[in-house]
């Protein structure tokens, strides 16, 4: 059955939309402000034990012995597990590429500081932590590969001794005739860049409660999971259970930004439950554990990149050589983040040829995981910085060189050299809106005056494509097979006409339950307050992925509207029989199925649903008594990648232009943001208030990455960050007020024309702040090429300039 999903808001049934496209208050919020929402640590199961983990103090060491006897003897201790138990009962996690996964507890050796080594379940967390102090682990220290540069050297200590080296992936992509465009260039600009690892740091750390049914050999894990179905599948493989015997129940969680629910905590609590004979075991990661080894550290990268230029400023080629530090293996799918930039490799620009030369390396740092943006933020920082360098080389304004290279509106849908197709965009309109908002010429005049006074004022102008609605095919380079990411929703109308939407993901912060209620309310023409949105655990949920890859807003819109359409068809069949007319003569509006053009000839949807459930005798012959439907949406037209990784991957290409002015304090190296202007085009905005929330949150995280946040390691692999006193998340003082302009270029390919927007601003903010800082530093002859441009780094540069 082919279902036609409305491509624009005006294609929805009914004359007027009351909710879609409006600043709708979120149905999630009353419970959240009241403090009544069941976050995972609010869940207590009967007879539940509590887990604590002993973690490695060494970056690389062989485990030569354990003594857990004193811990086991401590009153209140329920179970203790070590690598020996894990070896018997579990497998290393699957990875992409394969062969770089660890067991949940260290087996034979530790590979990073903070790696779990022994785990205890006890009557309370306090007792479990007491027990850890009684555990003795003997280590034989091994040489350390502390950085990617060290790890890639001949003879470097190998993390995974079964592999020939620490190189997880080495590959070069050529898209177009790269050597030729560089040979033909009038100018080539090149630079090296370093992006220090940052991380998600949601305010809630990870937590879960595992119950291993030792009779039926099945497992239930409640937890703060971003992607419940994916987590259940992975745990089935790593814990040797059939895939239908692992049930994951995702609880509302306090943010995620990519990394919520890494495998280790779930597996460790599950194995403790198994060892404790099936008692529920809760594990709540604490912040120190999160900062040392939690799922959410991302992007530790060295770049060497070049642009090929024509004399008129046309950019013809882009070469990127990337050395990527994955940390201790690929357990967190951090590798995927080197693949995502391929979906928008050449940004907003008509660059005809590109090369991506990848070396992805394991080191003795914490493993990397997804974080909002999933790779493009550093990539965009490199591309946009090179655009500025090119502008300087040619004596062009930074806005002008971008303008000369944009993909023009009439070229969409537009296929970029790395294979993805951009759906729509008006990049010059977005640029002009941002420049006007900022009063760009006045900013430049202000800068000129300030420079005469010796002040360090800088302006950044960056244009970025934000790929949205991810597809698995984008990640073929790391070995992921698959095209399509199903997301399902069930819509059901009960005998009283009340409507429930059931989805496979839980609350995380983006307001997607509200969106589902908006859509259903407008589709059927009912009051949104009456629509319930319910969560289904993995054993009963429709196929789903959940939030990720700026995909859920678009995909849940498709799923909900698809299910609504199916119900509309059923309702029309029933009503046509009852009213003795053709189904095609009927329309759905304002809560009624009515005969078009015949006032009063109508049935309320409650009557229709009630008839379906209570009067089988009145239904069309053979019709199911089922006023409900499930629809599983996936992005249309996705293609299998070719040998150069080229395919239609991310469905939408949102676009933003940020214009920023900063001032650097020459005495301290501190950067203040004086002005921040954003023009953003993410297609149709289904709930503009929540879209703006995504944008603002992304800007704040981008500011953190550009100015403050950094997982610092010593030269011998010891992490120096273990609290929020060292990992500096921006506060209300550091995030400026922004001026915003909204551009709407609907996607021709998505439900209602919406584009992915969840990762939005973090794609752009780090780039534009770094560009502004370097513009400020320009008169001094120094440039910041490492993130974050924290006061100490900038101060060092200022000293060099003296």
């Amino acid at each position, binding site marked *: 059955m082919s279902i036609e999903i409305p491509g624009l808001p005006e294609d929805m049934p009914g004359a007027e939309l009351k909710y879609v496209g409006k600043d709708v208050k979120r149905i999630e919020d009353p419970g959240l402000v009241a403090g009544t929402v069941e976050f995972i640590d609010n869940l207590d199961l009967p007879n539940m034990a509590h887990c604590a983990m002993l973690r490695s103090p060494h970056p690389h060491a062989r485990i030569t012995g354990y003594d857990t006897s004193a811990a086991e003897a401590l009153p209140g201790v329920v179970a203790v597990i070590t690598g020996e138990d894990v070896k018997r009962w579990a497998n290393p996690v699957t990875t992409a590429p394969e062969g770089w996964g660890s067991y949940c507890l260290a087996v034979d050796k530790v590979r990073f500081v903070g790696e779990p080594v022994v785990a205890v379940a006890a009557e309370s967390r306090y007792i479990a932590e007491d027990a850890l102090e009684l555990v003795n682990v003997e280590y034989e220290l091994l040489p350390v590969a502390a950085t990617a540069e060290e790890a890639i050297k001949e003879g470097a200590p190998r993390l995974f001794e079964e592999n020939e080296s620490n190189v997880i992936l080495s590959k070069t992509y050529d898209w177009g005739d790269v050597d030729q465009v560089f040979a033909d260039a009038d100018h080539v600009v090149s630079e090296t860049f370093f992006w220090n690892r940052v991380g998600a740091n949601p305010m809630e750390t990870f937590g879960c409660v595992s119950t291993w049914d030792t009779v039926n050999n099945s497992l239930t894990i409640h937890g703060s999971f971003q992607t419940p179905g994916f987590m259940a599948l992975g745990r089935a493989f790593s814990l040797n259970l059939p895939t239908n015997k692992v049930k994951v129940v995702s609880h509302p969680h306090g943010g995620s930004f990519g990394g919520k629910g890494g495998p280790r905590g779930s597996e460790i609590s599950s194995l403790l439950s198994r060892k404790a004979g099936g008692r529920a075991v809760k594990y709540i990661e604490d912040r120190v554990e999160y900062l040392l080894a939690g799922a959410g550290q991302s992007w530790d990268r060295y770049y060497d990149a070049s642009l090929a230029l024509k004399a008129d400023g046309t950019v013809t080629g882009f070469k990127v050589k990337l050395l990527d530090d994955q940390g201790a293996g690929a357990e967190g799918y951090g590798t995927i983040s080197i693949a995502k930039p391929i979906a928008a490799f050449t940004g907003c620009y008509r660059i005809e040829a590109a090369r991506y030369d990848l070396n992805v390396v394991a080191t003795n740092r914490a493993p990397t995981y997804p974080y909002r943006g999933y790779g493009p933020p550093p990539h965009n920082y490199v591309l946009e910085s090179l655009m500025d360098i090119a502008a300087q080389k040619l004596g062009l304004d930074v806005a002008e060189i971008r303008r000369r290279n944009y993909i023009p509106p009439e070229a969409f849908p537009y296929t970029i050299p790395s294979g993805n197709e951009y759906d729509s965009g008006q990049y010059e309109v977005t640029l002009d809106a941002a420049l006007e908002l900022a009063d760009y010429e006045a900013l430049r005049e202000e800068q000129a005056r300030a420079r005469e006074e010796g002040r360090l004022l800088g302006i950044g102008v960056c244009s970025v494509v934000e790929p949205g609605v991810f597809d698995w095919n984008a990640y073929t380079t790391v070995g992921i097979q698959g095209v399509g990411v199903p997301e399902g929703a069930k819509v059901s109308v009960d005998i009283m006409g009340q409507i429930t939407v059931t989805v496979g993901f839980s609350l995380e912060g983006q307001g997607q339950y509200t969106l589902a209620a908006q859509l259903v309310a407008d589709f059927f023409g009912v009051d949104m307050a009456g629509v319930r949105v319910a969560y289904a655990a993995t054993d009963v949920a429709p196929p789903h992925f959940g939030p990720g890859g700026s995909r859920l807003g678009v995909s849940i819109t498709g799923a909900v509207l698809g299910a609504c359409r199916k119900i509309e068809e059923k309702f029309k069949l029933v009503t046509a029989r009852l009213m003795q007319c053709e189904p095609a003569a009927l329309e759905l509006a304002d809560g009624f199925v009515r005969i078009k053009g015949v006032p009063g000839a109508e049935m309320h949807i409650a009557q229709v649903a009630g008839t379906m459930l209570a009067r089988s005798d009145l239904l069309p012959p053979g019709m199911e008594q089922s006023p409900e439907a499930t629809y599983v949406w996936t992005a249309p037209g996705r293609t299998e990648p070719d040998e150069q990784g080229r395919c239609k991957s991310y469905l939408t290409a949102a676009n933003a232009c940020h214009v920023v002015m900063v001032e650097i304090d020459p005495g301290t190296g501190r950067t203040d943001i004086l002005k921040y202007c954003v023009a953003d085009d993410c297609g149709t905005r289904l709930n503009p208030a929540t879209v703006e929330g995504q944008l603002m949150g992304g800007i704040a*995280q981008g500011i953190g990455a550009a100015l403050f946040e950094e997982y610092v390691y010593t030269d011998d692999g010891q992490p120096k960050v273990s609290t929020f006193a060292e990992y500096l998340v921006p*506060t*209300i003082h550091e995030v400026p007020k922004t001026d915003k302009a909204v551009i709407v270029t609907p996607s021709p390919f998505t439900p209602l024309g919406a584009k992915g927007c969840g990762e939005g601003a973090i794609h752009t903010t780090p780039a534009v702040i770094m560009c502004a800082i370097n513009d400020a530093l320009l008169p001094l002859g120094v440039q910041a090429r490492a993130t974050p441009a924290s006061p100490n780094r900038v101060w060092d540069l200022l000293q060099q300039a003296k």
Partner: protein
Amino acid sequence: MTTKQTVKVTVNGIAYERQVEPRLTLVDFLRHELHLGGTHVGCEHGVCGTCNILVDGKAVRSCLMLAVQVDGESLTTVEGLRNRDTGDLHPIQQAFVDEHGLQCGFCTPGFLMTTLELLRDNPNPSEADIKDALGGNLCRCTGYEAIMKSVRLAAKRVQEGQDIGLTHTD
């Protein structure tokens, strides 16, 4: 393990008495002994403000206090904000809903309690006053702009006469 001590405390107007270990943190006491789960734990080292509650009317980090330290005190947590009879949201809670001052909502109870202290003492705060008061609360979702708007809206409603229902001694 050490000898347990008695803690008598009033939380949101209700008197509780429990025997606790001296090492039990106040936030663990609230969450796991009294089952008041609305106060969340973000860092357990006093930086993020997620666990802020009012002790004797002052906003404190409940992760940095021990339960035994509040013996005899009067506490207010997020559960104490709503109107107990009607269930209506407190004006500050309503302002956060109205202005989209939250996304995941995990840090929100801490922001609400800090805002309550602010507006009780200063119903007409300047932008600098708000930043000063909320500078010790981390939010990873909103970028703070909508929180700023929420606090301003709440302040406006307090100035218009809405009762935020808390005196210093509550």
